């Protein structure tokens, strides 16, 4: 590992780390609309453009729908584009999400994970991005500020890879990660330029090679385009691993692969989770391990494409698997749990499964909550159907 001796240590929030990542990627166009808790990402970028230290076009659009539309227009000219949003803003641009993925525009977007209305709530959970998990975007979930900066850079390399050409959504837990300050090594521009090549694509408007873009495909052809999209998405797993290794060579930091197992090799009980709560779970795993309990954690860093093989390799032999997530697909179970359970259903030895839905609307997930989850996972009784789902911290009956 060579590292980056010219890197600068800074004290940054998760949002500021994303802004630095976007800045260092030298996007031609940034189009965004402010929304809590994403606002400070684009405030920082707008400041830099205004003072002249960032040579990007900053488009002050009137909505999130327009933000992503503007990014697509710029991307159709071969521009590197960046945007950021959150919650209701992400849902407002939902129509454009499938346009961007179907049009194969490799836009990078940061999403500050935040609860969805109603009731109105500006705090963090993962209901927003998981509601759009099938929109054709690569979804990455980030744990800390350094990873936020590093993955913003990697996201451009993944999205723009010719075998991928698919937009990337970087997900940061609202407030817990977006507004928490941590020491971050900010790479030098020279090191980033050596890592991230300028965006090149044959899929763009050109006076010398005019093309028809964003056209119609009827029943005879539509499926073929969707199969291509699916395969490009699958390619992203290998490309993301390659990009991660390349990043480690340039900067000396490796945040792990599509999944990051923690003490899973000999674990009988594993809690699968994603995002910043992984830090809390890791601490509880350490504590329970010190008491001789065979527990572990599996962090999902990439949710789409779903890293099924990686997950099975890491936890396929566990006796009991829980999934902790900040969302629920009303009327069934957590969206991540459905994915994990489907992956594990092909196994010979099926582990017991439980789904912990917690942290909705920004409610804290405490160590005590996580200890209780592990205790439930260690209890022998088999749980099937609806009783596999637990809303953490909700009292079902009153004791008046």
């Amino acid at each position: 590992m060579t590292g980056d001796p010219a890197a600068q240590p800074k004290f940054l929030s998760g949002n500021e780390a994303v802004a630095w990542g976007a800045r260092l990627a030298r996007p031609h166009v940034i189009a965004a609309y402010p929304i809590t808790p994403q606002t400070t990402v684009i405030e920082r970028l707008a400041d830099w453009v205004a003072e002249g230290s960032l040579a990007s076009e900053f488009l002050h659009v009137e909505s999130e729908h327009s933000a992503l539309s503007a990014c697509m227009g710029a991307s159709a000219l071969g521009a590197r584009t960046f945007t950021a949003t959150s919650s209701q803003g992400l849902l407002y641009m939902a129509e454009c999400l499938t346009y961007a993925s179907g049009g194969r525009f490799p836009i990078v977007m940061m999403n500050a994970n935040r609860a969805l209305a109603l009731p109105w709530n500006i705090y963090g959970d993962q209901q927003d991005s998981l509601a759009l998990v099938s929109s054709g975007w690569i979804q990455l979930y980030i744990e800390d500020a350094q990873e936020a900066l590093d993955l913003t850079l990697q996201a451009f390399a993944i999205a723009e890879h010719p075998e991928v050409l698919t937009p990337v959504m970087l997900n940061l837990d609202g407030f817990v990660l977006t507004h928490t300050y941590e020491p971050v090594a900010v790479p030098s521009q020279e090191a980033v330029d050596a890592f991230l090549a300028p965006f090149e694509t044959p899929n763009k408007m050109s006076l010398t090679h005019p093309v028809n873009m964003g056209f119609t495909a009827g029943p005879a052809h539509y499926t073929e385009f969707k199969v291509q999209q699916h395969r490009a998405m699958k390619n992203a797993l290998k490309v993301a691993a390659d990009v991660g290794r390349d990043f480690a060579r340039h900067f000396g930091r490796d945040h792990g692969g599509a999944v990051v197992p923690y003490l899973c090799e000999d674990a009988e009980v594993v809690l699968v989770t994603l995002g910043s709560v992984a830090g809390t779970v890791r601490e509880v795993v350490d504590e329970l391990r010190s008491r001789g309990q065979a527990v572990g954690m599996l962090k999902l860093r990439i949710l789409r494409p779903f890293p099924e093989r990686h997950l099975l390799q890491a936890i396929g032999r566990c006796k009991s698997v829980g999934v902790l997530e900040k969302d629920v697909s009303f009327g069934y179970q957590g969206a991540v749990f459905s994915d994990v359970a489907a992956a594990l259903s092909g196994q010979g030895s099926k582990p017991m499964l439980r789904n912990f839905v917690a942290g909705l609307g920004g409610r804290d997930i405490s160590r005590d909550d996580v200890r209780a989850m592990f205790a439930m996972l260690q209890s022998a009784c088999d749980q099937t159907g609806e009783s596999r789902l637990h809303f953490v911290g909700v009292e079902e009956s009153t004791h008046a």
Partner: protein
Amino acid sequence: MAKPYVRAYVRPNSLAGYPTGPCFTAGHLAETNAAWRSERPVLTLERCNACLRCYLACPDGAVLLRGRSIDIDYDFCKGCGLCVRECGTHALEMVPENRKGEKK
């Protein structure tokens, strides 16, 4: 002015024949687009004084310049008759499709 080149449509026979996303050289939309025409404008060259009002009036670009006169692109002419209405010398007349090529 040359007629715009419209590439023949060849249906891809496998996934590999498709472009990466909906982005490809134009020309696959239609080779002809005139199936519903019931009458066609027919030119009597001797009466044409090359004023080109028909050329300007055609909403479909189906009137082509040809030397000092015009020609009609029957692959795209919808038979609306605007060119006939605009023609000051009666060089253009509408002829029912069931009398193809006949002139009075």
